């Protein structure tokens, strides 16, 4: 039998289908953060779990080969910087940090509403998902370097 990283074929096949659904669900939670329970953090965690699912099913080597970890790092820190930038835009437009300068647009209770809050949710979602995945990835890297004996 061929030596391959990760779990069995069944798990891999199921993961291949389900990962996209999980990511989609995470995006849904993030986008509806200002209307329903959840939001940037919860949706971000769901997306990070999708990546973790991939890592568990296919093994670390697969992630190392196909996912550019430093790119995830960059997404994480740039989304945090973006959050601050939106806050500073609040100062520029209405004089207060994180002021909701887009609040006049959209209709209440609809997806297109709540001004900057959905944007902040998206930014936080990106930050949390990438951050959480990179944290777990970094912890698993330790394990590779010095075997757990």
């Amino acid at each position, binding site marked *: 039998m061929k030596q391959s990283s990760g779990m069995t074929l069944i798990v891999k096949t199921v993961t291949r289908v389900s990962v996209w659904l999980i990511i989609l669900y995470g995006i849904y939670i993030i986008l509806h953060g200002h209307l*329903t*329970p959840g939001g940037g*953090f919860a949706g971000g965690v769901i997306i990070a779990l999708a990546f973790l699912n991939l890592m568990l099913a296919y093994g670390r080597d697969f992630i190392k080969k196909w996912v550019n970890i430093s790119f995830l790092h960059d997404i994480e820190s740039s989304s945090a910087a973006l959050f601050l930038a939106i806050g500073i835009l609040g100062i520029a437009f209405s004089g207060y940090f994180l002021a909701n300068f887009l609040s006049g647009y959209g209709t209440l209770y609809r997806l297109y509403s709540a001004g900057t809050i959905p944007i902040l949710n998206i930014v936080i979602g990106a930050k949390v998902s990438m951050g*959480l995945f990179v*944290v777990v990835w970094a*912890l698993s890297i*330790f*394990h590779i*370097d010095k075997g757990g*004996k």
Partner: protein
Amino acid sequence: MTVYLLCFILLLVGLYGIITKRDLIKIILSLGIMGYAANLMLILFGYKSGAIYPILEKGVTPEIMVDPLPQALVLTSIVIELGITAMLVALAVRLFEKYKTFDITKIRRLSG
């Protein structure tokens, strides 16, 4: 009152674990228990019997909702605890690398 007492007992369970356990991982888990007890306490402070979830929808007024602020606080404190737990686990892994054990009675190069 009973729920607060139970909550306090949960806090003490966590503290007991931190004080008596020798395993790094068990200490981290006990810290988690303590943190959950504190979070539970915050949620209980915001609870109103018979009230609904605090989400603004058509035809819902704020009077019949539970207090949303403790829930926001708990979400924040969960994030903080996530960070601390990740930090502690990373430290535990690195300590294991150095000492080849999780037993705190064997990890004592520092004195006093």
